[in-house]
């Protein structure tokens, strides 16, 4: 497929082409989401060379398993970023000499969401990112800390409980409260 034609397709229309090994469709997908993927990898691993390695590995795994994407389970972008997040956490754990964690499947946490609910363009994404950072910053420190340790640090709730010296139930409760607050702010107009 020609690049110009691929550029006119939505992510969900590109995925079947990627599944059939179309490099142009894949290239468009990378150009749309490579920046967010690299930024997320860098946020987690904290090193440019490692972030590059993680991003490349994640996109190659998408290239090789493109057919696994299920559009009824969420957007392509969410799926892609969950693949990057998992790869980055695996990288952190292998660097720390721990076995990779396998309890968070690439697509297990994706919600049922119509494909049409996609964010429209990068400018909006950047604006949204700034607002989301603000929303996270407004969370009580005790809630944002457990969410960051889990999502960006790859720690389990029991590890976080040990790190912070808290009961496991308290950690899970703070995670829940924090996510509910973010969700509430999204519902008020951030999304």
């Amino acid at each position: 497929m020609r690049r110009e034609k691929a550029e006119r397709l939505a992510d969900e229309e590109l995925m079947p082409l990627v599944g059939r090994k179309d490099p142009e469709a894949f290239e468009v997908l990378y150009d749309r989401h490579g920046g967010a993927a690299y930024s997320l990898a860098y946020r987690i691993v904290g090193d440019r060379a490692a972030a590059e390695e993680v991003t490349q590995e994640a996109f190659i795994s998408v290239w090789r398993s493109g057919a696994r994407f299920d559009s009824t389970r969420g957007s392509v972008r969410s799926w892609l970023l969950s693949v990057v997040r998992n790869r980055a956490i695996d990288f952190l754990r292998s660097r720390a000499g721990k076995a990779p964690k396998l309890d968070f499947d690439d697509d297990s946490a994706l919600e049922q969401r119509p494909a049409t609910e996609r964010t429209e363009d990068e400018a909006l994404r950047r604006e949204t990112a700034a607002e989301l950072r603000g929303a996270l910053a407004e969370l009580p420190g005790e809630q944002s800390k457990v969410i960051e340790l889990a999502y960006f640090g790859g720690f389990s709730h029991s590890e976080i409980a040990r790190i912070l010296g808290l009961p496991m139930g308290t950690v899970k409760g703070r995670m829940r409260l924090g996510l509910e607050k973010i969700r509430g702010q999204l519902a008020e107009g951030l999304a």
Partner: protein
Amino acid sequence: MTDSDHKRWSEDLAAYMLGALEPGEATELERHLGTCKRCREEMRWLGPAVHSLPESVERQEPPKQLRQSLMAEVRADARPAERPARVRSRRWLLKPAVGFAVVALLVAGVVGYEVGRDGGEAGGGASTVVREINGMTVKMIQEGEGGRLELAGVPQPPEDKVFEAWVERDGEVEAVPALIVPDRHGHAETTIADMEGVETVMVTVEPRGGSETPTGKTVMAMEVPQ
């Protein structure tokens, strides 16, 4: 299910969605989700909060070579489906520039520094030859009927170009199916399924997607010991 039973699962949901449950706990919750509509709805409601987390990170510009290297690997992987795996041709021998470069590099290979040679594993029929050619460390491993060409110190190909490997036997040149794609450390390797009668292994610079016969600059050529 009582409200207190449900509360227990409900508290696990956020940890699950953040990837923070232990593997056994996650499996147990997934089993519960299969039968509990209320929990599924809660998970659906909380989903956007989790999906917003990666969108909240400070934007970093990915390095240009990441795109180049990624697409080189993707195109190399896509290529076997796009064209026949093996093409025979003598046309490359008629190209003076290529022929001259090959001769020059073969001479360099012959007089070049032979880093090592392994006569083979006992009973396995394996042999390895390592040479320094054109600034690269070239390792040719022959095992059984096949072989593996390993390169170190390989530069990234020019934009819109790829490295392609070839073997010569009986005076004919055949393309090696997979393109040579160096990783960011300059390592690359490719497998040669049939080494019988192969006299020379070479690598050339070709247009993106590869060529059916060698058309570009030869970056490495090495005689294969018989």
